[in-house]
């Protein structure tokens, strides 16, 4: 029998699944390796709010028994994953990283969690986040800030910061996050992993704490596009497309890429810009067709996002803001209070603007397989920074973090980020790709081609 791999918690699902299926590695050994990494690193990273060591070992042993008996559920069978602590896992609290939810205990799984359980995933724990997912740095949490595994003085991004940090540092092989303005893609880019926001409405959101229902999405964070596709397939409950994740890919010359430049490239860190341009040049050299595209109303995105997102979030929190305001972290409380002043007529204007943006993204994709832009305009910011310098300008961290991602929450188009190099200081940069409306699998397939080309040295 082959020797089990060293540090299996660092491998991808694609590498691990055949080892588990063949009995060359047990789920119990893999789960123990993740739990050992959590023991070693979580006190510094603060990625997990809850570690489920006993439950995970029992699930892993059950997976080993099933696989040995010939019941193989698929590539997630026996794989340790983590869940953002915003979604229900039966028998555990869903804290949303807030004292507001003290005493909560889920009596059933969120639908996507149940589907992952059915696919044989092992749940090692629940990850830290920006309180109620209402922020982009994972600093405002009742459990303290998440730290970036690449540089612990820096933010892991947010709001799914614990999930991205866990995947990047080997604390779990994949994780499930949520994305309302970029909360899967921002931390994934900041930590150097792959994050997928599927098309709006692709995946059910029941038993997941909402931020605002117009923009909320749930999706995977993983170490490769293939891994993200495998986890996504399990989350849909229709795993018939799983084999496509590892199938033959078209050549790069078949790809047509639209680069979103006006507005989106106006305010980008120099090193992030250089890595992005390198990636686009690599695709061109590989034969992809690349041209620039624009959204005529891109400058209105922040206003549209704000006037829908804030009042929806505030409506959900109105009762607890009135009864227990002291239980919120101060920054989250004050932003939720803002939404209570907004007027219905402006919400309606923003909803009309949303339709305009959706049509403009469709138009930009006409004749393209993908839109491309950076995922995050800056490298991971220092923890505690209120502003960052981009060129000669001091920009509020929250504004710059959301600037390149919120467009696809407004439009609903599927989007993902994959690593495209690092700054001189070793901080990851993310390449964001968006695909046609309601075609998450088409996006994933095209992203596999991009990932393959970027991996070629």
């Amino acid at each position, binding site marked *: 029998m082959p020797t089990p791999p060293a540090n299996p918690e660092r491998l991808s699902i694609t590498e691990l699944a055949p080892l588990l299926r063949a009995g060359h590695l047990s789920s119990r050994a893999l789960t123990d390796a993740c739990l050992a990494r959590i023991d070693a690193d979580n006190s510094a990273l603060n990625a997990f709010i809850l570690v489920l060591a006993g439950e995970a070992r029992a699930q892993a042993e059950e997976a080993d028994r099933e696989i040995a008996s010939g019941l193989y559920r698929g590539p997630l069978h026996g794989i340790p994953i983590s869940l953002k602590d915003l979604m229900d896992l039966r028998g555990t609290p869903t804290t949303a990283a807030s004292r507001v939810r003290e005493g909560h205990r889920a009596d059933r799984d969120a639908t996507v969690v149940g589907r992952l359980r059915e696919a044989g995933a092992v749940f090692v724990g629940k990850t830290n986040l920006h309180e109620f997912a209402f922020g982009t740095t994972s600093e405002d949490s009742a459990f303290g800030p998440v730290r970036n595994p690449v540089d612990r003085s820096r933010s892991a991004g947010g709001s799914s910061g614990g999930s991205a940090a866990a995947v990047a540092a080997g604390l779990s092989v994949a994780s499930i996050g949520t994305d309302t303005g970029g909360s899967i893609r921002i931390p994934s880019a900041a930590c150097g992993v792959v994050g997928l926001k599927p098309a709006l409405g692709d995946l059910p959101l029941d038993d997941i704490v909402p931020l605002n229902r117009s923009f909320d999405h749930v999706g995977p964070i993983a170490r490769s596009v293939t891994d993200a596709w495998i986890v996504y397939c399990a989350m849909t409950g229709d795993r018939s497309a799983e084999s496509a994740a590892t199938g033959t890919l078209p050549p790069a010359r078949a790809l047509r890429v639209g680069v979103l430049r006006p507005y989106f490239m106006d305010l980008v860190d120099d090193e992030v810009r250089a890595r992005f341009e390198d990636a686009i040049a690599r695709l061109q050299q590989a034969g992809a067709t690349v041209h620039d595209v624009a959204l*005529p*109303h891109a*400058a*209105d995105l*922040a*206003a*549209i996002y*704000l*006037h829908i997102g*804030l009042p929806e979030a505030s409506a959900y929190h109105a009762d607890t803001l009135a009864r227990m305001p002291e239980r919120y972290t101060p920054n989250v409380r*004050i*932003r939720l*209070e*803002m939404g209570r*002043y*907004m*007027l219905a007529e*402006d919400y309606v*204007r*923003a909803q*009309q*603007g949303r*339709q*305009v943006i*959706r*049509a*403009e993204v469709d*138009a930009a994709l006409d004749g393209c397989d993908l839109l491309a832009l950076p995922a995050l305009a800056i490298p991971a910011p220092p923890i505690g920074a209120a502003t960052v310098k981009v060129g000669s300008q001091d920009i509020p961290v929250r504004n710059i973090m959301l600037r390149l991602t919120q467009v696809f929450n407004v439009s609903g188009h599927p989007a993902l980020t994959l690593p495209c190099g690092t700054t001189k200081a070793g901080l990851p940069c993310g390449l964001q790709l968006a695909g046609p409306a309601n075609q998450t699998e088409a996006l994933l397939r095209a992203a596999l081609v991009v990932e393959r080309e970027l991996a070629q040295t």
Partner: protein
Amino acid sequence: MDIDAWLAAAVADAERRGLPDLKPLLEGIARSTRALRDADWNDRADRPEPPPSAARP
């Protein structure tokens, strides 16, 4: 309600509730709301034709 009146009322209410930190945030929203109301997709009762935008839904 026009934006200046809205901002004055919101700031007064925030101060009454002991939330002075809201003032700069509300001022930021007021700027954003102005941009939203000025956008060319908005319908207007005195305009018989919808705005000639190809992107209009």
